[in-house]
């Protein structure tokens, strides 16, 4: 029964995923006939060099980036929600994204470069984002041993986020107009920043992070019972928690560095997955959440490319439109939703 539901959900998500792949290949600011698109994808270059370039250098990286980033953010949200036993935990609310942003801001604004400039390179941005994320993680971890309530910890995360934002404002104030502009554009969220050349690095980091999340399915399920029960079931709490925070830190940092601080996908997708799967068993929840995260991100990208004459709409202008109604629905119905209490 439960297994049949899981299979049905996975099949539906795969169908949606494939459909979105085709739509994102076919739709864009330049009209390319679908037949030409398919022949380029299958290896037969079109006579139109521009079309080849658009498909290979822009559309395919966009699809891969959004699929991986969506999966990464959704899994981060799920892991943090389980660890903190709080349905509102996610990388952006806990301040991890903002920590990453601060790291990126330091690299981009202090160093005076803009994203992708060869002199500093995306490795510097990635390192900045990673250090920022891990510093926030470390602070949260330090507080979590002193603060028992996960709600209080969540509030501390929000406050850290404000602190990081204030530092970012200061950096913006001191930086040149040019770098402020590139930082603001980066901050709006964008899955088109990853070039074909950068794609292998981004993909490798994200895929490793996603695979790592699969390694802690068993302790995650034990953590649903709370830390004492989990410890009594043989879970090494410190190891599991540190591993989990490292995985979320790396995933959040990678996505934030390349795509900007993308909001709401991490918060909302785990809830959607639980609601459609009707379980909180991580063995089924993690794969479904990854796939649902990809579908969510690709859907947002599709919405961002649809009004083709104005160029791309920033991703962070779209995610709240999808995310906020879902969160309000969940908050209003929390007494009726099966996985609360």
């Amino acid at each position: 029964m439960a297994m049949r539901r899981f299979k049905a959900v996975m099949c539906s998500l795969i169908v949606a995923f494939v459909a979105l792949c085709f739509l994102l290949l076919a739709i864009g600011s330049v009209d390319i006939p679908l037949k030409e698109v398919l022949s380029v994808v299958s290896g037969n270059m079109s006579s139109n060099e521009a079309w080849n370039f658009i498909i290979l250098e822009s559309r395919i990286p966009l699809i891969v980036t959004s699929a991986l980033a969506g999966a990464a953010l959704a899994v981060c949200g799920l892991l943090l929600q389980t660890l903190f036993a709080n349905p509102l935990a996610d990388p952006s609310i806990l301040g991890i994204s903002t920590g990453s942003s601060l790291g990126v801001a330091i690299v981009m604004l202090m160093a005076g470069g803009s994203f992708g400039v060869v002199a500093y390179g995306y490795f510097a941005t990635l390192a900045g984002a990673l250090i920022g994320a891990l510093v926030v993680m470390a602070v949260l971890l330090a507080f979590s041993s002193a603060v028992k309530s996960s709600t209080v910890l969540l509030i501390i995360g929000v406050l850290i986020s404000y602190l990081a934002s204030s530092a970012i404002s200061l950096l913006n104030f001191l930086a040149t107009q040019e770098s402020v502009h590139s930082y603001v554009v980066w901050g709006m969220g964008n899955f088109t920043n990853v070039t074909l050349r950068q794609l292998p690095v981004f993909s490798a980091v994200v895929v490793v992070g996603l695979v790592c999340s699969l390694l802690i399915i068993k302790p995650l399920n034990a953590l649903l019972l709370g830390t004492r029960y989990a410890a009594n079931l043989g879970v090494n709490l410190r190891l599991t928690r540190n591993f989990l925070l490292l995985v979320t830190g790396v995933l959040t940092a990678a996505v934030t560095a390349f795509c900007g601080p993308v909001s709401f996908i991490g918060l909302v997708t785990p809830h959607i997955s639980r609601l459609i799967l009707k379980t909180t068993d991580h063995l089924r929840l993690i794969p479904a959440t990854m796939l649902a995260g990809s579908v969510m991100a690709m859907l947002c990208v599709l919405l961002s490319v649809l009004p083709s004459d104005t160029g791309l709409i920033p991703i962070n202008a779209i995610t709240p439109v999808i995310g906020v109604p879902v969160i309000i629905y969940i908050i209003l119905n929390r007494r009726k939703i099966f996985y609360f209490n």
Partner: protein
Amino acid sequence: MKSVLEAHNLAIGYRKGSDKKYKVLGNLNLSLYEGELVSLLGANGTGKSTLLRTLAGLQPPLSGDIIVNGLPLSAYGNKRLSKLISIVSTERTNAGGLTVRELVGLGRQPHTGFTGRLGAHDKSVVAKAMDDVGIAYKAEHFVAELSDGERQKVMVAKALAQEAPIIILDEPTAFLDAANRVEVLRLLHVLARENGKSILLSSHDVAQSLALSDRLWLLMPAGTITEITPEDAVLSGKMSELFGSESVHFDMLSGEFLYKTNAECGVSVEGDDIMRHWCGNALRRNGFVIVAGSGCNIKISSPSALELTFGGEHIVFNSVEELTAHLVKLKKEGELWK
């Protein structure tokens, strides 16, 4: 008898920082034997939960040793310990989205592989655990749909599925109604007797603990723990000292703690045991003390014929209610016990 869990000169409590210690209890020497059910009784806030957590290896002791099956507790890793001790705690869980079967299945984690997938044997252990606590009919329900009492049973089933020889339970009957309380304790008693499990539980249900425990650990107000059988605890008067309260005393006959009343208002009651018990219940509640041979005597021949003899007068009442009302009136007017 073989002891499975021992404490030697154990001090329990909390560490604040690297050297500050907040001691809850100290100098404890305890043993839990194979196949026995032990109830830990004591007042609120005396450290029962801290002691249980420490013995289960979930909280480091301040000093002293805990020995599990002949080896120090610290010598076991989390993994090995999870096969020896299972717990039921009062911790809030976040498992509403699992079915009862899935949650009980988590109890198999010490025995399953990397992904936690259950094999055929695991599944049958889970099914038996659910049967034993009587929650099998809700196996496919979400835990969120259950009442507090049903959840408690599910956690007990989880502990059973873990198949550890030692089970430590912190107030396992706290949320249960009277029937379920008896059922769960009876089940634990059977597990100790027939399956040789060693069961340690804390409880506020004194009457049930006296009835079903092989031994008691009495956590006295002075911070010491007395290991004693229930009967000796009652007869030696240890039970009366348990709560160190001026206003409550232990009634040896009923095995319950009762409110101390003004000893001057003594009433004697004659009749069969049941009628004496319940008439006494009403009188005690209203501030009288049941004594032997008082000048104020009640003779009960049936629930509707209660004869009060007092100061040469004989009045027959039709119910306990009428009798009690009359006595209360007399007491207020100062007619009795001048």
